[in-house]
């Protein structure tokens, strides 16, 4: 069975999702979802081991060889993200058991878990596949299930947020298929590695340039890069807390992965930085995103929205890492993807824990909660510190690598801007802390207690992971370095 | 023999096209909803029907194509007449009266907005 691990990774949740409909009993479905997600996590651990010992794994679906059939190809970059996504979904699902009960009416629980598993399937499918069109199909699976999860939020604004995301997301997906179509037209193939071989012959043609453009714009819509981020804050703010935690931890990371795949594996970094001014564009957009979103975050009144804006800012950091175009820059991006997932999942789960007790995500209703639910609030604070980049947390590690990469490349003004942007993060995190600890409660919170244990445990696992991976970076940085090596290895690492 | 079949088939096809065309002209030029729907249903029945008959002569023998065309003809006759009926009835139900008296000047603007 070990040779089938790449496909098992995806089809376990894929087949589990329809199976949920047969189970019908919400409690059972919830536990089943955890088991499935844990199984996916174990599979990705197995894959990690295989990739490290045996190198890249290729799996032919339907037994057809690569450009004719669909191929799954798992290298170190895939497995790194597969691990991240499946681990996050498992942890989040553990917390979901109680949180969902309060936030959704009972007859929708089965649908929520089914959508959750479908979303997981979609994300894992995007990560594992080496076929450009297959990416689109799984992108749509994850997108449609995400719209559903968001729309299940109780506030009516969840509906409009979901609709807005549906429109933007579909435009993005359509742009991606236009891009894939143009690439297909010039090369006659859809397999990413076959594309990579055949594109250099035609890569000065205008068609390929516009293919690249469309693909990039489509992916950037999905990953909410700065001017295209408008759908994200509302979507995250009004979705059920569990959905927010999962999406914030994984969905945008997967989009960033697609961008990295496109730039490094399909087109090759050489083409991207020499033919197009991608470095400059990414740098400007990344910086603009960091600042604009951080400033917006400071003014938010809804705590979920506040951290959603912070997510947009963090995406800016990831893009900035890519813009540097060096190996170290890529390492910074990859490390930050992992670390950001850890901190955002912790923060949003902790918020979910608070929402579970006070039924509101308004910042003012959090006033005074610091005394009532110290452990949950401490998790938000530690997550916040991590977002700022305080030493001993994961946030510090990623900022450190980012600044290092910037300095190595001689972009010191940008490095200074990055450090300054941390001040903005300090401001919005401080604002949260101020409400939580130093403001008298606005609503009656006398009988509010700590979040239930089934939420506290996952929250604190994440918080401890935040600290652990801040001290011991061998896993994250080690894997990122290996991934970066292999990505640059293909093209010889000219830069 | 083949020439004769061809000629017959083309006669059908051309008349079919002619009816389609008249149907289209009628749809644009007729004064009110009900006369228009009359024009439109001509396209469906006579136009499409004749073209299908013409095609039957072209299909070359009693292969698989012929019965398929006959079936299409049958279904289109059934479906399009029923559809015209349903549309007309719906219009009548929602209060659209046919313009019968010739004394009233048919107002172009009104009827086109109803379409």
């Amino acid at each position: 069975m070990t040779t089938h691990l790449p496909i098992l990774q995806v089809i376990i949740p894929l087949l589990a999702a329809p199976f949920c409909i047969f189970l019908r009993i919400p409690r059972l479905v919830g536990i089943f979802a955890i088991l499935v997600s844990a199984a996916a996590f174990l599979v990705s651990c197995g894959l990690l081991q295989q990739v490290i010992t045996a190198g890249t794994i290729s799996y032919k679906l339907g037994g057809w060889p690569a450009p004719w059939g669909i191929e799954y190809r798992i290298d170190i970059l895939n497995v790194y993200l597969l691990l991240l996504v499946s681990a996050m979904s498992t942890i989040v699902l553990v917390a979901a058991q109680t949180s969902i009960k309060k936030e959704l009416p009972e007859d929708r629980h089965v649908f929520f878990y089914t959508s959750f598993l479908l979303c997981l399937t979609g994300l894992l499918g995007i990560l594992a596949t080496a076929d450009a069109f297959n990416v689109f199909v799984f992108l749509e699976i994850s997108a449609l299930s995400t719209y559903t999860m968001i729309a299940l939020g109780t506030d009516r604004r969840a509906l409009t947020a979901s609709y807005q995301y549906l429109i933007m997301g579909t435009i993005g997906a359509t742009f991606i298929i236009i891009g894939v179509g143009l690439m297909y037209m010039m090369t006659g193939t859809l397999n990413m590695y076959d594309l990579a071989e055949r594109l250099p012959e035609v890569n000065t043609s205008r068609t390929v340039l516009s293919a690249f453009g469309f693909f990039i714009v489509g992916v950037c819509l999905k990953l909410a890069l700065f001017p295209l981020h408008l759908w994200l804050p509302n979507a995250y703010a009004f979705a059920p807390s569990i959905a927010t935690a999962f999406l914030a931890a994984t969905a945008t990371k997967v989009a960033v992965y697609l961008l990295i795949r496109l730039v490094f594996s399909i087109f090759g970094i050489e083409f991207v930085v020499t033919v197009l001014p991608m470095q400059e564009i990414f740098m400007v957009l990344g910086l603009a995103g960091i600042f604009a979103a951080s400033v917006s975050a400071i003014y938010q009144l809804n705590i979920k929205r506040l951290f959603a804006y912070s997510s947009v800012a963090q995406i800016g950091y990831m893009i900035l890492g890519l813009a540097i175009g060096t190996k170290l820059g890529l390492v910074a991006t990859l490390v930050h993807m992992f670390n950001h997932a850890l901190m955002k999942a912790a923060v949003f789960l902790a918020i979910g824990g608070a929402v579970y007790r006070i039924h509101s995500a308004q910042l003012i209703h959090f006033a005074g909660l610091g005394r009532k639910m110290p452990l949950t609030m401490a998790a938000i604070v530690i997550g916040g510190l991590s977002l700022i980049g305080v030493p001993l947390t994961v946030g510090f590690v990623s900022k450190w690598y980012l600044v290092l990469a910037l300095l190595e490349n001689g972009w010191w003004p940008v490095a200074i801007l990055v450090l300054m942007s941390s001040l903005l993060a300090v401001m919005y995190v401080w604002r949260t802390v101020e409400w939580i600890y130093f403001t008298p409660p606005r609503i009656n919170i006398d009988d509010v207690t700590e979040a239930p244990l089934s939420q506290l445990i996952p929250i604190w696992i994440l918080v401890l992971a935040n600290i652990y991976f801040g001290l011991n970076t061998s896993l994250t940085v080690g894997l990122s370095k290996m991934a970066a090596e292999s990505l640059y290895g293909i093209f010889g690492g000219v830069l | 023999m083949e020439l004769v079949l061809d000629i017959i088939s083309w006669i059908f096809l051309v008349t079919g096209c002619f009816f389609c065309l008249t149907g289209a002209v009628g749809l644009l030029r007729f004064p009110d909803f009900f006369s228009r729907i009359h024009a439109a249903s001509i396209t469906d029945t006579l136009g499409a029907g004749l073209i299908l008959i013409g095609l039957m002569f072209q299909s070359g023998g009693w292969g698989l194509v012929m019965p398929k065309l006959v079936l299409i003809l049958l279904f289109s006759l059934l479906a399009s007449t029923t559809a015209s009926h349903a549309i007309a009835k719906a219009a009548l139900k929602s209060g659209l009266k046919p313009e019968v008296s010739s004394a009233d000047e048919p107002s172009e603007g009104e009827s086109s907005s109803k379409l």
Partner: protein
Amino acid sequence: MSDLFAVVMLSGIYSLISASLFLDLDAVDVAFTEASVGAGISTLLMLASLKLVSRYQKKTRYKPILAFFVVVTTGAMLIYGTLDMPHFGTADAPVHTHVAPRYLNESMGEIGVPNVVTSVLASYRGYDTLGETLVIFTAGIGVMALLMVSKQTKQESKKLIPADMQQQIILRIVAKMMIPLILMFALYVQFHGDYGPGGGFQAGVIFAAGIILYTMLFGLSTSQEVFKATTIELFTAAGVLLYGGVGVVCMLLGGNFLDYDFLKHDPVHGQHLGILLVELGVGITVASVMMIIFFKFTWRTVKHKYKK
């Protein structure tokens, strides 16, 4: 245009014309699908939802400058992209020389199905089709979750729903004649997909259309006596499970996921069986999802009508 009814009808006509154009471009399967989906089901769903929202659009002044700018930029990018394209209809474009020839030349020997589109769809790229089935399933889950109707409403309104079309005798009689034929046609399309255009997806849509026609004419409660909502819900999942199950069985028999060669001793027979089964899976899921979506919309209408 502020009458949304007209907008929806026109978009249906647009789809129909697109379908004929697809036919002209040799894409028979695509034309079939576009006709049944774009002109059929999607128009139907839009009309069903128009019943729930206001039919007329409010006149609003909007500032189209930004939109115009975005559109023009996109257009410029696209036109720029077209300039180096291989010309329309040329046979030596890379598209025709790299991957596709194998499908056209070898598929008869490898799979034994004359319709190459079916063999690529269900076998070479069968995994994409599994994904596509899952997309439909996802949409079904989404609509079910969003437009849930409580049991109470159902029971309260059970006696209240009259068949709206009671007086439409001609419609009812014609429909009674047509519906069995439509369903039979759906089955024909389902199982003849290997040889001619068609397959699970189109068949599912046509089947659902037949049932929807019945529902519109004879009332929701009548048709739900046969097609119980809970059963259909199970069927949406069953189709996906059937498709995935075939893949898993292939895996257990020693092949890769969805490698139908291993289903029987003779690879070509195995492929045949595999394609038949997965197309059935697609058909089941599509038909039941389409039905359930329509039912949910109709339940909403019923709810609005009788709750007030």
